[in-house]
């Protein structure tokens, strides 16, 4: 086989593998959300379908597919159909550049080893807003419209803070390639300890970008009756729902890669690229474990804190996180300059 054919073949394998893991992860993060929320509220949660309710996603899926896919008469049909699809896609595209493992055999465990990894990610993430804005606009009804407006303002604001927060990371690593970022950290020098302010800003911005509480302005069940997806039903609604969880997974994976050392652990010799298949798989499991940790964090926060008011959200984004990010870059650059 020629190198090109080999590349295509292995890339196809990796894509199928990632999708095969990502889809159940999305489904089960929904179950986790429901069970954890139930436990926090002194309830038990779904436990009827299968052992411990583990087949619940299957039942939910069947329900979503069998429900009537209703399109209200007053919507703008083309955009109305387009919006749910656009919501799902950016999350998947983001996953493509994330190194989810070290090596298995000769293959790097990343779908696309881009040398502009993080720039690509930010480009894709900024597309994420279109799904929600289009849904709000296409629904042609007041609550979704308000949700769409809020979403556009919120996501654009926090993207800036997010972008500023990662600059010190790349000043330190000296490369935009995410594989290099992980390799830099793999010795145990996790960037969360070296760049805590960056991590904090990125974390807050990630909550805002994924529209999770305490920043779920576009959805706001209590004020906007569901916000941008009020008019959606059936599988189109499910796509928004799954898109939210896919975004959470993508954001978690991003944080793990940038700040928590990706697939590496600083002990048991797991800190360098795997020599055998077993260690390679172990690295993937470590990565998934770290992502799972963040997912539980996302879910827990949702049931812990009330929603910010809209002006508070804007205040926090523009008047706190943005200056903090700038100061962080400045101070860190000065420190690097003095050290050199």
């Amino acid at each position: 086989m020629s190198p090109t054919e080999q590349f295509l073949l292995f890339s196809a394998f990796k894509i199928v593998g990632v999708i095969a893991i990502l889809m159940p992860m999305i489904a089960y993060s929904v179950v986790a959300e429901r069970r954890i929320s139930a436990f926090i509220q002194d309830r038990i949660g779904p436990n009827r379908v299968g052992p411990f309710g583990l087949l619940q996603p299957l039942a939910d899926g069947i329900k979503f597919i069998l429900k009537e896919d209703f399109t209200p008469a007053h919507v703008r049909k083309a955009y109305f159909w387009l919006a749910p699809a656009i919501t799902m896609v950016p999350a998947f595209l983001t996953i493509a550049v994330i190194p989810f493992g070290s090596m298995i055999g000769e293959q790097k465990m990343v779908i696309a080893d881009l040398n502009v990894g993080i720039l690509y990610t930010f480009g894709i993430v900024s597309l994420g807003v279109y799904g929600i804005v289009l849904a709000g606009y296409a629904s042609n009804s007041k609550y979704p419209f308000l949700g769409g407006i809020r979403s556009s303002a919120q996501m654009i604001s926090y993207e800036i803070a997010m972008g500023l927060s990662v600059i010190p990371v790349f000043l330190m690593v000296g490369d935009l390639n995410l594989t290099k970022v992980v390799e830099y950290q793999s010795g145990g020098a996790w960037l969360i300890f070296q760049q805590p302010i960056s991590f904090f800003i990125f974390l807050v911005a990630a909550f805002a970008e994924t529209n999770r509480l305490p920043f779920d302005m576009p959805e706001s069940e209590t004020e906007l009756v569901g916000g941008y997806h009020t008019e959606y039903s059936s599988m189109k609604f499910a796509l928004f729902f799954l898109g939210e969880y896919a975004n959470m997974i993508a954001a978690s994976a991003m944080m793990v890669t940038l700040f928590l050392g990706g697939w590496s652990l600083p002990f048991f010799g797991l800190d360098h690229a795997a020599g055998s298949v077993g260690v390679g798989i172990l690295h993937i499991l470590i990565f998934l474990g770290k992502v799972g940790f963040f997912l539980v964090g996302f879910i827990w926060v949702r049931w812990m804190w009330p929603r910010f008011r809209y002006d508070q959200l804007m205040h926090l984004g523009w008047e706190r996180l943005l200056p903090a990010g700038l100061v962080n870059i400045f101070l860190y650059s000065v420190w690097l300059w003095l050290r050199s």
Partner: protein
Amino acid sequence: MIVKRPPLNFWERLYIPAVVNGFLVTKKHFFSKKVTMQYPEEKWTVPPDYRGAPYLVKDEEGRTKCVSCQLCEFVCPPKAIRITPPGPTVNPAVGNVEKLPLEFEINMLRCIFCGFCQEVCPEEAIFLQRDYSLTGESREEMIYNKEKLLELGGVRPDTIKKWQHKAEEAAAQEGKH
């Protein structure tokens, strides 16, 4: 009324104490005992005077108390009760000396559990009892007939002791003559 809005102090503005407290509260609830009742497996016990489904009762000697006067049928707001009156003739063996219902049906799909039948019954023969969850696979199955109602109703001791009084009265009459 004027709601006072005192400015937040430094710690409140910092948000971190609120975060920690929020986590502690949710953690406590996460591990605490759950209040959910696993319904079909676990059921709550209803109080003894609960007004559930109406059933016919027997007295302590196993006699059907209903005398098919049809007052409950008339009073029933949703017309759930249907009585076919001329019952089997008096059976001295069990002491039923008044007329019995030939058939007594309650359509549990129509019944609204209002208790008028219990209230109106001069013989204290029908009572709203403790069943609240009646299920069936067809409409026919939900029409409870006399046998079923008597079986479900069980025995309710008769405080009036009507037949005993009747017998005593009769004996006293006999003695006089």
